[in-house]
């Protein structure tokens, strides 16, 4: 196999909380690869550690264990944190206002990172910025406007343009469309696909919206309480998931369909995500898992490859994949029943 573009190996990120008394492993042993031009979705409830992974991949925080490599070269270890922005990863966040200076014209926010990196001269930087605006579908005339004169969708495009000007290989989108209206979201998701085609750009798309993840990602990682619980091709997760948590997330997401086509056996998870300071023993999902047994409390399920490229951490992954009912009944549940 060729060397992956990005490789995260057994990464742990620990925060000290409660005045330093307690350790919180926000990310606890996560590994994944990202190929060039690939798009990986990371989904999971809030608090599961998705943004912490994003910040680590950008070297915005120090990792506690493991390493991150880019094209085979080690760039981040606990001893030597990487330099943000230096190795081809850029990020866009949920809040489109946050990254733009409200008192500067758009063009200023775009050329500033280029200045800092010492790229070109004043006029070539302006040209590069205007060209990039056109690429993300923003009229050049808006370059001399201020952020408050633009809509949320336009600002998010400008954030994307700003990130792309630094010629990243990977763009991390952390809930970047969560605050946008569906029609604007559709535009931005289409733009991701265009950028993948045009620049061969790779994406890490962090979202709590499974449909968004399925739409833009080649593969999806499902995260729960600091760990990946399942990872595989998007289509496989949608139809043959091998983890109860993934099935619960799929089942919880309401689809805009007439009543007669809506899932009848919607699985609603009990309770909320526990505190990562004191995670449950064994399988971390067991306090909410509808099919947990004593084994789940005693032993953490290993990360197993169920089919090529499809991994799951569940003692009963085979049964779940075969459609084991998750509501205590004995009728098999077919994920494809809704079509």
């Amino acid at each position, binding site marked *: 196999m060729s060397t992956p573009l990005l490789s995260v190996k057994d990464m742990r990120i620990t925060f000290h909380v409660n005045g330093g008394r307690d350790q919180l492993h926000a990310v606890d042993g996560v590994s994944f690869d990202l190929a060039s031009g690939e798009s990986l979705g990371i989904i999971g*409830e*809030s608090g599961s550690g998705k943004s912490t992974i994003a910040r680590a991949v950008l070297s915005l925080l120090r990792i506690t264990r493991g390493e991150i490599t880019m094209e085979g070269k080690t760039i981040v270890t606990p001893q030597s944190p990487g330099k943000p922005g230096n190795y081809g990863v850029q990020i866009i966040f949920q809040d489109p206002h946050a990254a733009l200076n409200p008192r500067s014209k758009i063009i200023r926010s775009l050329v500033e990172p280029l200045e800092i990196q010492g790229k070109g001269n004043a006029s070539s930087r302006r040209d590069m910025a205007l060209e990039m605006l056109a690429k993300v579908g923003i009229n050049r005339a808006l370059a001399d406007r201020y952020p408050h004169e633009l*809509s949320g*969708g336009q600002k998010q495009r400008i954030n994307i343009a700003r990130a792309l000007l630094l010629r990243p290989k990977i763009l991390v989108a952390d809930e970047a469309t969560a605050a946008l*209206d*569906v*029609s*604007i*979201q*559709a*535009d931005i*998701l*289409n733009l991701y*696909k265009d950028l993948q085609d045009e620049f061969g750009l790779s994406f890490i798309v962090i979202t*709590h*919206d*499974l*449909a*968004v993840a*399925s*739409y833009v990602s080649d593969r999806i990682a499902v995260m729960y309480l600091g760990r990946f619980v399942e990872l595989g091709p*998007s*289509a496989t997760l*949608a139809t043959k998931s091998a983890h109860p948590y993934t099935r*619960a*997330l*799929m*089942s*919880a*997401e*309401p*689809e*805009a*369909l*007439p*009543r*007669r*086509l*809506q899932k009848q056996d*919607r699985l*609603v*998870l009990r309770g*909320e995500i526990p505190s990562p300071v004191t995670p449950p023993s064994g399988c971390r999902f067991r306090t909410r898992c509808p099919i947990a047994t004593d084994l789940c409390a005693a032993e953490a399920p290993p990360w197993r490859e169920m089919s090529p490229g499809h991994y799951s951490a569940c003692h009963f992954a085979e049964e779940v994949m075969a459609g084991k009912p998750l509501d205590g009944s004995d009728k098999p549940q077919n994920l494809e029943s*809704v*079509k």
Partner: protein
Amino acid sequence: MKPVSYRDPSLTDNAAQPLLSVSDLSVYFRAGRKSSNRVVDNVTFDVARGETVGLVGESGSGKTVTGLSLLGLLPEGIAWTEGQIGFDGKDIGKMSESEMRRLRGRHISMIFQEPMTALDPVFTIGEQLTETLRTHFPMSKREARERAITALEDVGIPLPHKRVEEYPHHLSGGMRQRAMIAIALACEPDLLIADEPTTALDVTIQAQIIDLIMKIVSDRNTALIFISHNLGVVSQVCDRMITMYAGQVVEDSVTDEVLEQPLHPYSSGLLASVPRKSVSSSRLPSIPGRVPSPDAMPPGCRFEPRCTFAQAGCEAAQVLHRRADGRVVRCHRHDQLTLKGALT
């Protein structure tokens, strides 16, 4: 505990008459010294007892303002309304503030996306519940406290006798949402207005809250106006769906009918732009352009600048057509167009 009758004897309970009847409601906001913007324009719809109605549309289309005006909660001095809001046969618009106060919380309640807009950080959950109950029903403090505990239990809050003593900031996001719902529903109102109540929540917690709201409104025959930009949630919760665009109602139909066969190009466009798990590689259709701002409304059909079906006749202002099949749509081409729905 002696039973409290939540039924208000003054209510007519006339099944033939809608519980809520909004006609030609317009809402204006002051904009500058002499001008104003009409942000809600001649909105007309009815809600029957026990009916669940979704209010959908992009942000800025006037959903929240419509909801607030039904409760008389628009910011005083800068906003005013025109038109009639009939509730159980009485005109809310003509009520005094003290009459409104008796109605709010007792007959009509509202819940919000952010529970802290409704919860008071300096009072315990129990104090806020008993306050609401005692405002509307004659009962002792002790009795109100017991009812508060039951109310928390009804919304699935674990250890309710402990939670009554807690302040809102001690609760998780999902639990705060439940506490707000408990307060809004404590007096068993006839109409609940829910403004994006699950938008900030994870899908798992959203599913819990949806189930809770659906169970309570159906058990108690409470009418529900569910404001959301999430068509998936609305298709699960609501019998009927009203689509708003730029301050106007553009479609009002039974939810399943809109999903299968929308009548307004805007409803169709919204449905198409929702990403779906089942469909992946194709491009997502989106609606070009953006919602016009209230001070620059197109003179004709407000959707015309973004509509791919626009033609002669669309430059004229559009009226609501009441069709023979009972559906309501604001587009003169409604019987010429066959638009894409959720399944096409």
